[in-house]
């Protein structure tokens, strides 16, 4: 398989691009593997890659029901950051940032990690204090952060309405200067290609329809392409967690599925340099390399497995966007879509062995699992390989709800659609 580089591109171009080979194989499923990962999204693929590259476990299958990357990895607003407040989140997401910075290199695939800065706007002095508190926690955890005043914000993002007459005047903001975006599809493809090169079988269009059990132990899965056995089965199916776990007999989980919409405008020349979030509502926006404004806001609150949403979120999101950037009002929405969010009861993830023997669970990513992709795979692979959590995911248990150790970053409590 060719290593990607400028040189290989030139060489191939001269030959009319006839010699390129598939980025990953399309193998037939084997009857058994050491580890099966269900879900060919970012987390499933990165788990497979780290199992192979960090733990030497290469006899691995990633089982994906649709085309690779058809889930949330392919439909998110690509924001990558680690500006968290609570320690378990803060150290986990910072590990992710560390991996992001090396990712293109390690995968030999340009995932276009773009550290353009993530700016959260504050609209009251009280909110500035809250952001300062978060910014300080970041600093104490070794994460870069800057508290900006109104002028600094205006200089960074010239289109912003920084006037005092704005409905929610901008007071300042919290900047994580080395956070940013990455190209969502490339992350899936890059991990897939790299895992494939290490021997991982990626089985697309293969749907898990049931689990194989010996007593209470999970020993593999049933799929539309037959039974596949494995000593260990990891579940990383994001929005589909409840339905897949139900196949294994787990009837209830602290998770609800809802739809989150995302939006992209027509391409225009660069107009906004950073990722920017509105602090008086719920809105985040950045500009893709192609020139489209990519933005999103709240989930459509109700439980849903449909990858499409409804009009109120359109109205809410665009209203906030044009309030923040009134010069965007004449720009046009090109496309909108939805993804199914695995909203956990405290807004934080679950990466754990269990809840059944032979099974491992990775879920509860809410709005924010894209940025977690590398660290999630890193920790999940560790948990699967060693049958115990990595220090970074030891708090992301299922038992925390029983014990009262919720990791509630927003403090909104057990109402998943608030997180």
């Amino acid at each position, binding site marked *: 398989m060719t290593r*990607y580089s400028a040189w*290989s591109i030139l060489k191939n171009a*001269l030959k009319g*691009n006839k010699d*390129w*080979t*598939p*980025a*990953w194989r399309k193998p037939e499923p084997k009857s058994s593997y050491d580890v099966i990962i269900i879900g060919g999204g970012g987390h499933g693929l990165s788990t497979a890659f780290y199992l192979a590259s960090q733990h030497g476990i290469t006899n691995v299958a990633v089982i994906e029901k649709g*085309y690779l990357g058809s889930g949330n990895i*392919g439909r998110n607003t690509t924001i990558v950051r680690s500006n968290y407040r609570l320690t378990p989140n803060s150290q986990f997401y910072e590990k992710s940032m560390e991996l992001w*910075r*090396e990712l*293109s290199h390690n995968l030999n695939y*340009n995932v276009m*990690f773009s550290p353009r800065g993530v700016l959260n706007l504050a609209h*009251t002095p009280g909110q*500035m*204090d*809250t*952001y300062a*508190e*978060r*910014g*300080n926690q970041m600093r104490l955890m070794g994460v870069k952060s800057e508290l900006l005043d109104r002028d600094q914000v205006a200089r960074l993002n010239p289109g912003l*309405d920084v006037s005092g007459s704005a*409905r929610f005047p901008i007071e300042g903001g*919290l900047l994580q200067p080395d956070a940013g975006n990455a*190209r969502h*599809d*490339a992350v899936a493809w890059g991990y897939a290609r790299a895992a494939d090169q290490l021997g991982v079988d990626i089985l*697309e269009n293969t749907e898990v329809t049931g689990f194989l059990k010996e007593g209470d132990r999970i020993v593999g899965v049933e799929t539309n392409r037959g039974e596949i056995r494995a000593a260990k089965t990891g579940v990383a199916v994001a929005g589909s967690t409840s339905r897949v776990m139900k196949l294994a007999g787990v009837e209830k989980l602290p998770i609800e599925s809802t739809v989150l919409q995302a939006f992209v*405008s027509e391409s*225009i*020349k660069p*107009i906004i340099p950073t990722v920017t979030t509105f602090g008086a509502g719920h809105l985040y926006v950045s500009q893709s390399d192609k020139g489209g404004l990519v933005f999103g806001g709240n989930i459509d609150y109700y439980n849903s497995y449909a990858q*499409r949403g*409804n*009009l109120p979120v*359109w109205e809410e999101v*665009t*209203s906030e966007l*044009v*309030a923040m950037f*009134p*010069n*965007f*009002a*004449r*720009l*046009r*929405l090109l496309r909108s879509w939805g993804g199914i969010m695995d909203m956990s009861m405290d807004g934080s993830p679950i990466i754990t062995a269990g809840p059944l023997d032979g099974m491992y669970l990775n879920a509860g990513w809410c709005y924010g699992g894209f940025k977690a992709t590398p660290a999630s795979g890193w920790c999940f692979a560790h948990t699967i390989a060693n049958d115990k959590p990595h220090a970074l995911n030891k708090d992301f248990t299922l038992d925390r709800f*029983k*014990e*009262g150790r*919720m990791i*509630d970053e*927003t*403090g909104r*409590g057990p109402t998943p659609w608030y997180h």
Partner: protein
Amino acid sequence: MSGFRLNLRDGLGRAVDHDSKINFTFDGKNYEGRKGDTLASALMANGVSIVARSFKYHRPRGIFSAGSEEPNALVTVHSGPRTEPNIRATELELYEGLEVKSQNRWPSVNLDLMAVNQLPGKAFSAGFYYKTFMGPSRPGHKATQFWWFCEQLIRRAAGLGKGASQADPDKYGRMNAFCDVLVVGAGPAGISAAERAASAGAKVILCDESAVAGGSLLSSPELLDGEPAFDWAEERLAELAEHENVTVLTRTTVQSMFDDNTYLAVERVADHIKRPAKHQVRQRAWNIRCKSAVIATGAIERPIVFAGNDRPGVMLADSARRYVVEFGVSPGKAVCVFTNNDTGWLAARDMAKNGVIVEAIVDVRKDVPDNIRAAGEESRAEIFLGAAITATNGFQSLSGAQISEFTETSGEVGRKLKKIGCDCIAVSGGWSPAFHLTSQQGEKPVWDAELQAFLPGGAISAWHGAGAMAGKFGLRHAFRSGEEAAVKALADAGLGEGDSDVPRIEGDEIDYAPAPVFEINSGGKAFVDLQHDVTSEDVRLAHREGFISVEHLKRYTTLGMATDQGKTSNMSGLAIMAEARGKPIPEVGTTRFRPPYTPTALGAIAGESYGHLASERLTPMHDWHVAEGANMYANGPWLRPESYNRSGESVEQAYIREAAAVRKGVGLVDVSTLGKIDVQGPDAAEFLNRIYSNGFAKLPVDKARYGLMLREDGMLFDDGTTWRLEENRYLMTTTTAGAGQVMDHLEYHRDVVWPDLKVALTSVSDEWAGVAVAGPKARNVLKGCVSDCGVSNEDLPFMGVQKANIAGIPVWIARLSFSGEMAYEVYCGAGWGQELWNVLMKAGKRFNITPYGLEALSTLRIEKGHVAGPELNGRTTPYDLGLGGMVSSKKNFVGATLLKRDAFHEEDRLQLVAIKSIDGQRIRGGSHLVKGNKDEPGRSEGNTTSTCFSPELECYISLAMLEGGAARYGEKIYATNPVRDCHVAVEVVSPHIVDPDGGRMHG
């Protein structure tokens, strides 16, 4: 392309008003058009052929279509704050003084130096970015840095037009509309559906995206009831518009179909004039809810992909015909038609009939029906059957085409037949039904092998397809299917069938099924996605690299992701992929359509919210605060005075002055924003007892009690005082921010959990204005103005509540203290709030009464150790805040059980303390508590929550949450605040700094 205006005579160019000339500019050059022209028809009439540049290679691009499917002809309109990039010239209506610029080119659209992008040629193929720019192969963030550098350059080169840099000065509106039947598309199918539905008495809304409704009738050669189709449509639409049950909306695109028959349509109210009149909106969003819908959106012509097909001059055949018939503009001096179906021939005939020279008709099919052959002969064109165009030439624009033999069944290209000179190739690859709206709901379209097209799949909502959209091509089918769909929609709406009224049609009846030919593979650059420069070779490369799912194909090559969303290119792309995979088209499938149908202004979706994001919530004393120079602070929707700055005073100076005045004398503060809930009923006491963590059952009448509310997970939810006004009547107060949620919480428990309790809950936040009078002189102030009730300690003891009267205003007075001073809260009807305030100010004048704002309010409660929003952050329990005494062990209540979980009782939890600055340095908001010095602060052991300068202690203090804090009074640590660059030595103290035994407030 060197188009020109035809000799306009009766019947030709009906869409334009030949006598009214319009001046406009394109790239600064003056041109003349006619009223009714689109920018595209006017540019074409002026012989302008290159109007834009493509996205990636910056290749010259001409006009490709005549409608909203246009991939090529994107321009920028207006300048300054109204600048609008990426406008489709094919839809832009001409008006006097219109200024248009080409975009994505440097220095000009005819000479674009960015076209060097195409030089690397094959190296710049699909997937290029993923394979390179990874940077030097050394680890250590080098990869990131190298890409970051390249990305900046790439971003600058990408993008199409430039957006405005100032706020859009225009307004947007909304309309909520309800109807029985929504009809989308006012072509023959839509018109007949609307007529039929209206005849049954249905309320109908008929939308069409064009300026002039009529769809294909505007250019149909047929006679309807003996009249030209154009006239017939005009009459019928006028009748419909007169009908009292029918609303006809033109320039209105139905953009999206949402659940339960809810649609978003956007009306372009004032885009066809220079700028909206004063008070007029530019665009209006229609939120339409219907009982059923008829979708009659027609079909979009698709091209055939061939080498050199992106030269300006290559365009869709039916569009070429429409420019001739509707606008009276010839797309070129010599036109060559290239088709795989009968409609191309009719285009040739109709163009020729109107004076356009059609050089050749090239059809991939070996045979065509007789009537089609006759149409060809009528056009006087040279006819090539079993042939294809295999190359084009020209410098920038088209000047000729190579015609070669072609075998339809094998796709083989044979010998060259003839090179003909032409400046326009009108190409027709068949028709794709425009079912975009219906597939937005996610239902998969189904393949029709006969029509070689996808048709709409099943329906979740109540809609019915009609006309070309549903695969019912031809006028006869269009009318009939329109009526049939209307009958079904009427049934959905519970209405009768109405009357049929199909016109008599004279004209050809033809077969719309094309030959299954999508691409002529003869080598050379053949473009599939014209805007994004995706070639047929890119599609094959994606196949080779394993990106074989259509969704992968799209994402890997960006085919169909441009501003046209692949309206004319998706089919060709997936057909080429199907061929590469050796699979039939339906097995390869199609990518998903998503809303909106065409790009939609963000301002229009925001509608009336643009410029008015959310209403402000104001207290009765708002105008007074503003007049007194208060700076107002947004607290949720409320605006509250932050402080009343005297001239030259900073906020900090002002609040310190205000707080000190309260401690030493008396102050008053507007507390009208507190949530207030009227709780009544025989079970009100029991209900409150279950809701609050502390006891409420035994609260005596005329007394208030401070209560804690928990979430069911044991965390603090809200707090406030509740007053027992009568045996069965309470007034509950909540925090300002929590009011709505508390109301929801109470109603949920009343309705869903304990429906047997008789409790009435009413929000009375707006009924009552509230003023707190606080300070050692507070009683003196009240004494001077209260009647009907004493204010002494005996008459109105701490936590007592009394009805009284102040200057004729009926009030409730409660002896409550948030500040720790002697204090009263006085409530009256909101309409009297300002009057009450005035009276109190007057009564307090002698005591130098000082109005105080949020900052002082907060300062006073911090000194007192009272918790508020920042401490009730959703992660704290009553124990954490030292309020364990308020957790009753004698009863169960919401949150009681889960509060018992182990983790809530661990010793190292964050607990409420106060800290005070040791050396006078300022503690700033958002500090963390650490043991180390500034350079090595160490781990965070907690954080400050509410910070202020304490006039009482004359130093900076803060409430804070500290690990095991309750046992750490006296400890010296640091409040570090690196983002604000401070690091302050502090002492941990009890949060009850002022008057810990409560002597002042009880006094």
